[in-house]
């Protein structure tokens, strides 16, 4: 009957106690032991879409959910939004249960495809969504105008959405998600259907949101996008969390050292290990080489397929790591 899943006390009772003390600003989204099983009409299990997911999204970060099709990314987003009810575990958004309508005041959501009313024009669409928030008529008009300009649809704002191209619909969808100037933006495949310029603009926009202190959760299988914009990612495969951490950390190849140096002659090159240690040419950088997101992703997926369920992320260690590292390191640059 109810969406609320504080019900699953049996599974989550241990987790419940500490969070109540947490201040609302330390974590924006928290999933605890979140599972989702899709059942058919007769209650028979069809798919175990999500298995005991524990993630935390912190304020001001861009968090990416990464995974192949059917890995549970969209399910996670829908659970966070209360569009689905968890089979067990729970989701807290701004410290409220996902089934609370109140949380939506501070949330913007761009669905996988822009599910908008085709019979409305862009302006009517934004006006309609604006009316669902507590905005004065003047504010609403301003915001609608501003958002239409931001997504570059001034010329087409009086056309019905059914005449729009996919990219244009996408832009309206994005504008709709930002109508309430949300603190948390959930983007489901934000760059699909956009041309390279549109993709670039979308990425800039996401980074812009972060710069304004917003929290962004996006899910995607466009690896390059994730690599470019996300601070942290969680990689899901077959409903299981396979990897979680800072993008920079995840892409670091730990057992290899890469040296970039100039001004060394051939002799020095021959003795390079010593030279670096003792002679000291001018060392420009000594660092771990980074793989691409693609390598990491494919590795995880292959490994997971070879040994299903084997890889486990130790959540506590990982998050501690990340949170310690995030502010001081500055290795993003």
């Amino acid at each position, binding site marked *: *009957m109810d969406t609320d899943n504080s019900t699953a006390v049996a599974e989550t009772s241990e987790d419940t106690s500490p969070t109540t003390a947490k201040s609302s600003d330390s974590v924006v989204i928290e999933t605890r032991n979140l599972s989702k099983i899709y059942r058919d009409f007769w209650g028979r299990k069809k798919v175990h879409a999500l298995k005991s997911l524990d993630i935390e999204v912190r304020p001001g970060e861009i968090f990416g959910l990464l995974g192949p099709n059917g890995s549970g990314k969209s399910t996670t987003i829908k659970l966070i939004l209360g569009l689905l009810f968890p089979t067990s575990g729970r989701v807290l958004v701004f410290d409220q249960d996902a089934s609370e*309508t109140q949380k939506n005041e501070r949330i913007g959501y761009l669905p996988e495809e822009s599910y908008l009313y085709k019979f409305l024009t862009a302006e009517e669409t934004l006006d309609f969504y604006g009316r669902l928030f507590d905005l004065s008529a003047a504010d609403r008009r301003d915001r609608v105008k501003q958002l239409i300009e931001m997504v570059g649809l001034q010329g087409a704002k009086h056309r019905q959405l059914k005449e729009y191209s996919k990219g244009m619909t996408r832009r309206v969808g994005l504008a709709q998600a930002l109508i309430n100037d949300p603190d948390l933006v959930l983007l489901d495949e934000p760059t699909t259907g956009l041309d390279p310029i549109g993709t670039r603009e979308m990425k800039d926009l996401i980074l812009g949101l972060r710069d304004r202190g917003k929290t962004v959760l996006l899910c995607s299988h466009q690896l390059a996008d994730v690599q470019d914009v996300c601070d942290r990612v969680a990689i899901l495969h077959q409903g299981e969390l396979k990897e979680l951490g800072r993008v920079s950390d995840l892409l670091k190849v730990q057992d290899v050292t890469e040296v970039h140096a100039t001004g060394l002659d051939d002799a020095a090159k021959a003795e390079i290990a010593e030279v670096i240690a003792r002679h000291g040419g001018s060392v420009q950088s000594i660092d771990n080489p980074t793989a691409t997101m693609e390598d990491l992703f494919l590795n995880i997926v292959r490994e997971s397929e070879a040994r299903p369920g084997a890889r486990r992320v130790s959540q506590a260690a990982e998050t501690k790591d990340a949170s310690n590292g995030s502010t001081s390191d500055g290795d993003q640059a």
Partner: protein
Amino acid sequence: MNLQLDDFWSFYEWFFRPGAFLESAALKGIVLAVLGVVLGLVVGYVISSSRYGSGEGFFAVARAVRDLFRFDLPGTRIRRIFALARLAFKEAVRRKVLYVVGLFVVLLLLAGWYLNPQSDDPARLYISFVLTATNYLVLALALFISAFSLPEDIKNKTLYTIVTKPVRATEIVLGRMLGFVAMGTVILIPMGLLSYVFVTRGLDHTHAEVADVRELASGGFEGETDYTRFHSHHFELNEAGEGVTDMVRGHRHVVIRKEDGSFRVGPAEGALRARVPSYGSLVFRDRSGNLQEEGIDVGNERLAGGYGSAGISRLIGVSRGTRKIEHGYVEGGGLGTAEYTFSGVTADRYGDSIPVDLSLRAYRSYKGNIEKGIRGSITMKHPSKPIESNPIGFTVNEYEVDQKFLPLEIEGTNGNKTEVLNVFEDLVDEKGRMTIVVRCLDDSQYLGMTPASVYLRPTDHSFAWNLAKAYMSIWLQMTMVTAFGVMFSTFLTGPVAMVATAVCVLLGFSAEQVYDTRHYIDAGIERGGGPIESMVRLLKQDAMTTQLDVDTVAAKVIKTADAGIVYTLDAIATALPNLPKMVNTAEFAASGFDIFGAILARHAVATLGYVLLAFLISYFTLKAREIAA
């Protein structure tokens, strides 16, 4: 128009049924609400315990109820309801729903094909045509737009972007209902105006020529109008050359003789009206002059029907049998009479005469003089004192409203004296009551009447207002169907929701038949039985009044199963709104009767109740539903 028991009830009587609370609408409402709550809790518990386990299921249900009162109702904002209603309205408009008005215009344009121009009562024909057409069109429309919208939104996932805004389930449901009702209103208004124009223009005519005019000895004239629209009138004019024609097909014309000796016939008058009847209480006397509650039953008058007014008390078996008001008959030649006692007979309500309308039936026990109708008389009488007027004779005009005007001064008897009586001074008692006695004058022939057959008519209301009231009734029905459609669409797919709503509408319409079947089963009368038994009878080609011709065990099984089915259907039909009663307001308008305010008020309250119920069910199902599943 034959009024039933419950048509006479005032709003208060309908709602509380003083003395018979089991029949009251209030009780029905309470039972529905309680049943709704209990069923809701049980279903909710079953669903959530299957989701979360038995213990947690209980909390989930409790939380859902708490959420409604703690968060969702207080959090509901008119602003968002309006935004969603506007969306629903726009959706309907962009789906070209307004074309229905166009369809209606086409229906009116083609009306000539199926409206019989030779009808004896063209006003009834026209009015019931426009109202029936509107009613069914609008109900069908309400069915379509309400049942498909929400499932469509879920299928297209457009609802995702709505429920992820701070929109509450209450607002989604109310927004839909409001939007569609607004749409229906926008459609009904032009339909109403068009209907008014169609009816008034359609009945408007005049007669250009007069024929066979002769001068009367008194100085007046009499003659015939020409034959236009399949009828002509006879008229008589006074010395001043003014007069009216006789009533033909429910209307007459004013005829004026102009100075040049030509005649001018005015427009049709009296065809469109809204009589405001003042009904009296009816008692009968048998041939020996003894008081009887009912008149003589001359045949199969009250076999079935009229159960609906008994409400819950019928469902639980406290009141049994039909309560249909049918004609009671008065025998001619003896002391048999029917006595109507009217209240509020005061000089300020009536002008220079008291209009009284009769719609009586005649029953001949022998052929008699077939050329002439059965004769009767009416007598005005003081309710308690032995003062009465001389009888005024009439010949029965069956299936027509016979309009008479009772004079205010009339000869009569006061005790043993014969004198000229003044109606208001001599025949009306201090409470303003007067009795009208109807007798049959032909030996062993019978006059039949119901409490609605004889009434005084202090005023008429305007036809336009009456038509507006009929449209309000259609509006209420539309609102009800919309609410049901939205309710079903919160948990069924579009087509299924539409079928479910349609089933509710149809079951509501055929409730009396279900009650009938139940009555026969209860009373042990062989009338074909329930669905299984009638199927068996059909296959075996048995008549419906014979004993069921199968072996005892089979008969027992069939009858038990049938009783189960019929009782269930009965319970459902009782729970559903009484749509036939609401549609029946069209009959009032068509018959030229003012639609009683009480009846409209009852429909309005019932509609409100059902909308509320539908709203609550919709809220909980929507809330319990995984939008993205």
